[in-house]
């Protein structure tokens, strides 16, 4: 069974829909700005790729002061649904459409609720804290709003949450559990996450510089990315527009360290090879890699080694560009957003650049598409997500 992508939805620091986000990515526009969703006066660093407030009401639990994860997820999913026309003419039975979402959870919503009580533990919490605490409520609200009755699940796997959600949905379709999936990831820039990376000295002060010799860390981001996956035969039958095909996925664990990747990128390389095997493709077929590319010292060098392991003599010829240089690292949403970007590279035959790449690092010597987008035929694009703890998922999208 072949599985195709028929709808996309995107919200990042540089756009609130696919068209805006894609244009910004191609033009190399950076979304980093001063954080506004919480007070940064007591922090040395104050910047992130936050999504600017979206003044649009949504029919799910959120907070007047912040755009919650649920709100971003709803808006991006809604765009993908409208783009695909998946609900048109009631082609699919609601029980044959599933939902899966990757995220860290409603952390910002929880923080906002606690701010109202000065951080105390009251006997009765703010209602928003109740919504934030139940990790399952985001997906339940989406299923309720969209009227789907198929399998619903939330995936909590750090940076690879989104790709886990995509892989899970892909399996549900190919195993004939559902006909179509609404899949994505969403996250906001949460203060506790910012604090943790800040105090670990893992954040970039001004700009995110993946693969640059002077890279100083990651830049947190917010956003949401959603895809509609469908059985190819049914998508064609209903006359859907097809962006690309999802060919397969691969996964692995480093089983090595809680915060550091295996220095040789061994786990990442295994996930990439598993994805190629699962897709019945060779490394010679891949024309573009959207790497995890966080801008941290250890990730970028380990990932470079992993790419070299897999791509062998082609390692220096395959474009590898980190879009996190522009939109930051939206945590649990990152890999879903990058899946959408990988689909767009296949669809448009354009590869976005790695911006802020000024000084080459001898340990990172691949073609990172520095600072300027490139037009080239993209038959297959590979999307890497290598989470803390060595939790690796790789997805491959190809031309249909």
């Amino acid at each position, binding site marked *: 069974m072949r599985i195709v992508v028929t709808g996309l939805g995107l919200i990042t620091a540089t756009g609130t829909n696919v068209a805006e986000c894609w244009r910004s990515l191609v033009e190399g526009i950076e979304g980093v700005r001063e954080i506004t969703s919480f007070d940064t006066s007591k922090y040395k660093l104050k910047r992130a790729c936050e999504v600017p407030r979206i003044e649009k009401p949504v029919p799910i639990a959120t907070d007047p002061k912040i755009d919650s994860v649920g709100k971003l997820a709803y808006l991006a999913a809604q765009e993908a649904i409208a783009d695909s026309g998946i609900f048109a003419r009631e082609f699919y039975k609601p029980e044959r459409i599933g939902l899966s979402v990757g995220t860290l959870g409603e952390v910002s919503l929880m923080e906002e609720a*606690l701010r109202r009580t000065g951080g105390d533990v009251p006997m009765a*919490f703010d209602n928003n804290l*109740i919504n934030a605490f139940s*990790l*399952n409520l985001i997906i339940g609200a989406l299923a309720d709003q969209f009227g789907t009755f198929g*399998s619903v699940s939330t995936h909590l796997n750090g940076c690879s949450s989104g790709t886990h959600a995509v892989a899970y949905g892909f399996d549900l379709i190919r*195993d004939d559990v559902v006909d179509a999936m609404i899949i994505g990831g969403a996250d906001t820039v949460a203060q*506790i996450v910012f*604090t943790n990376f800040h105090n670990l000295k893992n954040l970039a002060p001004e700009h995110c510089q993946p693969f640059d010799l002077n890279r100083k860390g990651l830049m947190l981001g917010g956003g949401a990315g959603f895809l509609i996956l469908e059985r190819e035969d049914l998508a064609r039958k209903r006359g859907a527009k097809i962006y690309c095909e999802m060919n397969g996925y691969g996964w692995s664990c480093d*089983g090595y360290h809680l915060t550091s990747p295996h220095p040789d990128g061994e786990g990442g390389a295994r996930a990439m090879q598993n994805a190629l095997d699962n897709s019945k493709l060779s490394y010679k077929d891949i024309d573009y890699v959207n790497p995890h590319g966080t801008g941290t010292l250890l990730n970028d060098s380990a990932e470079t080694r992993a790419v070299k392991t897999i791509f062998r003599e082609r390692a220096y010829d395959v474009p590898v560009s980190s879009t996190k240089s522009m939109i930051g690292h939206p945590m649990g949403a990152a890999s879903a957003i990058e899946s959408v970007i990988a689909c767009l590279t296949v669809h448009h035959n354009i590869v976005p650049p790695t911006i802020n790449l000024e000084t080459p690092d001898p340990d990172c010597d691949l073609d990172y598409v520095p600072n300027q987008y490139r037009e080239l035929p993209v038959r297959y694009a590979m999307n890497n997500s290598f989470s803390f703890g060595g939790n690796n998922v790789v997805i491959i999208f190809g031309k249909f």
Partner: protein
Amino acid sequence: MRRAFITGVGMISPLGEGREAFFNNLIEGRSAVREIEGFDTSSFNSHLGGEVRGFKPEIYMGRKMRGLNRTTRFLTAAMKLAVEDAGLSPEETSDSGVIVGTAFGNSAHAITYAQKLLKEGPDEMFPLDAMDMPSNSSVNFVSVFFAIKNFARTISAGFTSTHDALGNALQLIRTGRAKRIIVAGMEQLSPELFTIFNQRGLLARATEEAAEGARPFNKTRNGFVLSEGGYALTIEEDQLAGARGVKPLAEITGFANGFVGGSKLSSNQRLERLSSIINASLANAAARSSEIDLIYTSANGLRDPDLLECLGLQAVFQPEMPSICAIKSQMGEAYGASGAMQASVAALSLSIGKKPLLNPPASEDVDPACHSVLKTKNPLVESPQKVIINGLDLAGNFSCLILEKYK
């Protein structure tokens, strides 16, 4: 199609640690539900919980678990017990996949971390405080502790989290995408969670009619009793288990799930959806409803969900209603871990050949609307062969697993 066998179980539960203590206490009728000692409940109307007491994580992992929160400790210790029960070598364990199911995971830790941050400021926060705070940290810890090389994921689907994790494992093994998976679930009974469920009016409380308690299907039921713990099962492909020469505890033969909640469905539509999911799980297992000996219900003492499940079972199984087990009256509601808890009980019961207690309300106490379901004409056979495990979440997930005696 490959078959998926349960080859080991491990648990840190309010009724004991490890399969023998847990299962013996369970079938002897001991209750996990007691007055909460871990935090002060005097200002609440509810005071009961299924607490794990006297847990010493160092017994299982030495000093490795210092600084970790209670959920990760439950998860790690339960996994260690399951791996030992299955007789897996370190290499075999490393080659396994891991699927963790949890409804709330480390949320209580995230709340206390955020409270400290908001009160004391970022300079007072130490990286170690956050080491086990993110929603994915528990699975990261176990994948490093057990040197997992295959894959590791966390699925959160409310009260059906581990039902869905087990269903996912079944599918991955059936299709040959994985050969051995450790499925585990864990939840923590925290004051934060207790406060939230209390605020939502979901906890059992004393009334003029009845004392506080876990009373599924009872006419006086008014909420559930929270429970905590960690439960893990090793699931292996038939050939792999055969090659190791182990005798499986049970086989997972069917699974189906879906969303039956939300504001758009009428009561009848929800019932129809729930029934169709039970039927889908039977079809997935190639089983007839008449073959089912026992149903481990999701019922926990909430008025509407218990009734919905009752009516759904009635629609599928009448007039040949199998025996109904309300295990949460004895164990409390282990929310995201409940599927793994129920599956552990079912696997042990199928393997040992001892039936669990059904825990039905006395006939005069049964909710009249549930009466037809509980009034089974066929008493539970001494050694059940084929069972169903239900999970129904407050947000609307419904999941249904089928386990069979190993043959």
